[in-house]
């Protein structure tokens, strides 16, 4: 329960939401689906801004990439024909596995998932990392501090007098999103670059039951041209950990001919050191490293097969 929640705001404009979120004297947080926030026992939260009326629930394709609005629910992503057709459907599948519960997928949003990040326990994070997704963030472009809004105790603090002019939007790579995000920025959408036509993708996961949270997951997207890897993207992740792109493995495979699995295995052995998963009560770091290598091999294998099939028959 949010014991000290005193204010509830329905924002109808993004700027309105940003103003509310910027208030320094009232801890205000954005409210998307609520599945994480409402279950949180955070007594410091004083106000929420409901984002449902901001018209940020959409999935569109501009030819270069797929734009997924921050308020798009996970279930909408599961059901989206656009996402089912993208990257062998791995983004839609990852949305499906991001919660075992359809009820939660009906409520939880993409923006909320990114906002809660690792705590979301969502497979989406790994797949979005493999897809080179970017996050569009917006904040106020200019803040004029109205000194008259201060109080004798806190001179200079802007209370009601914050003014926003224009908008300040920036795109942040998902892989660095959690490091680069700033307070008071609102997630607007996620942009997934459209994979090359001759690419193939794969997503796999390990869990105690088929729909359980992932102890470990892996996603790969590979472009194959003329029998060689033109580009490889490989990410590992799972519950309670940041998804990690294995750049060394990607580089080692780039431009290499698609021949045997041995070279993939060797590249993984050489580059798996980038994957430093945590130990927790669900699984040990050692287990995750050992299985991660196997799982990475398998997603690369399947993605390659899918890419070859795409090259032959079109995706």
């Amino acid at each position: 329960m949010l014991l000290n929640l005193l204010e509830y705001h329905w924002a109808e404009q993004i700027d309105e939401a940003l103003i509310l979120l910027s208030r320094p004297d009232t801890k205000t947080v954005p409210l998307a689906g609520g599945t994480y926030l409402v279950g949180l026992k955070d007594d410091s939260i004083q106000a929420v801004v409901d984002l449902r009326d901001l018209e940020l629930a959409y999935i569109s394709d501009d030819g270069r990439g797929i734009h997924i609005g921050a308020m798009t629910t996970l279930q909408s992503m599961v059901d989206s024909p656009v996402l089912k057709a993208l990257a062998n459907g791995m983004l839609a599948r990852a949305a499906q596995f991001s919660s075992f519960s359809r009820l939660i997928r009906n409520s939880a949003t993409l923006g909320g998932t990114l906002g809660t990040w690792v705590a979301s326990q969502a497979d989406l994070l790994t797949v979005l990392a493999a897809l080179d997704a970017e996050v569009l963030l917006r904040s106020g472009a200019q803040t004029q501090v109205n000194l008259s809004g201060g109080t004798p105790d806190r001179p200079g603090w802007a209370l009601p007098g914050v003014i926003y002019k224009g908008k300040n939007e920036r795109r942040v790579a998902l892989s660095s999103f959690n490091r680069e995000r700033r307070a008071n920025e609102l997630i607007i959408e996620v942009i997934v670059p459209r994979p090359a036509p001759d690419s193939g993708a794969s997503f796999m996961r390990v869990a105690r039951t088929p729909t359980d949270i992932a102890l470990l997951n892996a996603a790969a997207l590979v472009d194959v041209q003329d029998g060689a890897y033109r580009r490889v993207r490989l990410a590992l992740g799972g519950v309670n950990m940041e998804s990690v792109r294995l750049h060394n493995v990607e580089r080692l495979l780039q431009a290499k001919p698609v021949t045997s699995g041995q070279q993939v295995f060797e590249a993984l052995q050489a580059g798996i050191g980038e994957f430093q998963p945590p130990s927790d009560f669900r699984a040990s770091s050692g287990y995750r490293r050992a299985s991660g290598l196997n799982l990475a091999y398998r997603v690369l294998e399947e993605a390659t097969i899918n890419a070859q099939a795409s090259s032959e028959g079109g995706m």
Partner: protein
Amino acid sequence: MELELRINGVIKSLDSAPNDSLMTVLRQEGYFSVKHGCETGECGACTVLVDGVPRPSCVMLAAQAGGCTVTTVESLGNARKLHPIQEAFIDTGAIQCGYCTPGMVLSAFDLLKRNPSPTEDEVRDALSGNLCRCTGYVKPVQAVLRAAAILRGEAVPAISRPGSNENFKPWNPGRSPLEHAEHGAAPPRDDGSAFSGSTERPATEGDGSGGTATLVETRAETDLRVVGKPERKVDAIKLVTGKPAFVDDIDLRDMLHARLLTSPHAHAIIRDIDASKARALPGVHAVLTYKDVPRIPYTTAGQSWPEPGPHDQYVLDNRVRFVGDRVAAVAAETPELAEQALALIQVDYEVLPAVLDLRHAMDADAPRIHPEAESYRIHDASRNLAAYLHAEVGDVERGFAASDLIVEGDYIVPQVQQTPIENHIVITYWDEDDRLVVRTSTQVPYHVRRIIAPVIGLPPRQIHVIKPRIGGGFGGKQEVLIEDICALLTIATNRPVKLEFSRAEEFRSSRSRHPQILHMKTGVKRDGTMIANSMTLLANTGAYGTHSMTVQSNTGSKTLPLYPCPNIRFEANVVYTNLPPPGAFRGYGVPQGFFALESHIDEIAKQLGMDALELRRKNWLKEGDENPLAKALGEGKEGYTQIIESCGLPQCLQIVEERLNWKEKRGNPGTGRFRRGVGVSLAMHGTAIAGLDMGGASLKLNDDGSFNLLVGATDIGTGSDTVLAQIAAEVLGVRVEDIIIHSSDTDFTPFDTGAYASSTTYISGGAVKRAAEQVRTQMLDVASDMLRASPETLTINDRVISAPNGQGVTVSQVALHSLHVENQQQIMSTASWMSYNSPPPFAAQGAEVEVDTETGAVRVLKAISAVDAGRVINPITAEGQIEGGATQALGYGTSEEMVYDAQGTLLTTNLSDYRIYSAPDMPEMETYIVETSDPFGPFGVKAIAEIPIDGMAPAIANAVADALGLRVNEIPLTPERVLRAIHAQTGKG
């Protein structure tokens, strides 16, 4: 804040706080179908449709639904006109405790609106957010598919129940049957139709089963009319329509909300506690600490008097013994105020060393967990030994010496939780006669009354315990867990008080299954004949002894007799640790024992080079055998000799062997990354506790031919009310709808030990049968006067009592005559029943698995259960028991485990980290009921509730061993455990 919601088509303006959840607001408005099961949206009991989309309302702020339409199950249908989905849930037996049912119905409603022709996988996905701990999802999935067909206008197989009241007409007493007789006319039937004198029952449509299980009848066909038939559950309509039936579904004026402050330390002395600030908080009405309550040792184990386990618990104590142990209790005007008050209680702890590893609990330098002098019935408090058990028949060491092969093995089983969807909840209040009413979610209302009485300082006569519908118990509510403290808060405040656990509290502070380390040592001849068998175990009872002795006693007494060799030994040390105490959990020690025994049998077969089933057949218990341990190892005392009078084990195993395709698949795992294996486990259990369990029943006849049946038996969702009504109806020659059953109210119903030990159908059913036989005799006496025929010549069939000459009177006419006309008397009786026999049910369970050798992930592909539970009173509820029990065992085998950090704090406190199976997780499931008839129970019944949970985990482990050629001796079979075993064998890692 003002909020406008359109709820079930009605626009409502509500005044709510910004932090009110939608669930809270809806329940405040009286929509009780919206249930509380967790605070994370994971259980789905709080499902509502928001603008037509099913969502968990516990993780929605009410304001999020502002301006939206909200639909609850109350709007779908009612008792007079059910929605086809609700009908289908009733017809297929998809409702057990019913706590998750409204949510499931709404999820199904949404699915069928979007997709009128869903596949089974789509149905499972639609139900994925509605966790159910009772059904195994088999029948709910069937129900949705059936409803879909009905809504598409397709014909579906009829599930017509014997005694369906579709043609029932209003009752009218009419003229006296004597007048009819005088005029030479036949009397009208109670249902308004003309009496023909025929004994034929109305024809029923279809096969009537409605279920999936195959009923394998090994008994002769009988002329039973109600027993053995798939009657609708008597409580189904109120559950499927979301009627206020559970503990929390009442509004009491001025009710206070209680919260517990619990220990953050695994072991500590409370040097001082200052509650003055909390008490000063406006709206706080009581704060109780150990300084405010009497220090009386008691046990929370809801068992018969005198409870055999340690009396080592205190309402509140100055020593806390696990993280989650009680420190203080608060009653305040709102839950929020109570929460704030908890934060104001200042506790000065002296943190003590803790024992977190059961293997070190008896070390000489281990801290003592119960040094207090007042506690009693602890086996050896100085060694942290709560209970010790030893039983031996024959001479085991000589048996080992005479064996050709001795096989030893260690097996480890985890602490797992019952996880009912309804958490522990109790409401206490003073009634108008200043008697304390305890409305509680319990399996043991009579034990609650007796056990809390001295603790709260009231005589039992001043306590009235009411058990409404229960949202699942599975043994966890055979514990008198929170009734005492809530009662003390009512005594302190003179106000009604509600205390309800959150899901995290349920995990941290309620009960669970005992974890054990078991050592098996078995001696066999080369031909597989077992000569000696020994089971030695170390069990962890956590901070308190509760069921420590009796659970572990069952680990030996219910498992080792399955292979009755001449030399058997059982020894158990049950130790205290500073972890949350386990207690009773469906299976009651037996799943632990069978995991060890049945894994071990496969290992013996492997070493002998024998087929694992052949080894079992060579050594198993047979009809006519004496249970070798029954006398030596009773429950809390010496037991009673038990002869096996019925045993369907051969048929059960044959079914599982065939359905698993054993001969082809066993030992044939394939090659490559994914390996497949099949495994089997046998199991036996008990039916009630011999010489201890007792139930009572009262029955009286009403004017209209209906009967009030009052039983102390506690229906916790198992369907026992229905089964008991069937037994009464069978004996009385009437229909189930003629029986108005009321269960479990200490003021109005007779004593019953409660819903545990798989006893209700056998023990309480025996009481009902006996009471019904006595009422039947009284009815026949009256009818004989009316018909001028001797009672022994009369027969009763379908509400009509007939004389050999074709004359007849209805049961209603008998009632009217006896109440109003001549020799007036109330036809009624009260009877009780107990037994010194505990006939074991038997089962064979099988699993097929696929193992990923690169990650260790285990996927159960198929789970088969074949169960001999004697005669089955209601096949549809019996199937439900088997499917639900087997599903809980799937979790025991693969995914469920309570895990702690190094300080003893539980880490698995939500339904993601503690993983119970959801609908899409389920493997293909097959259920078979092998009917036998046992001479002791009513109509030949044996138990069914616990046996399905006993063998599935070892069957899975044996299947994994078959797939990999190596044994993982610890469950759950998590990917990491399996991969480590693979690496250990291959030398990796």
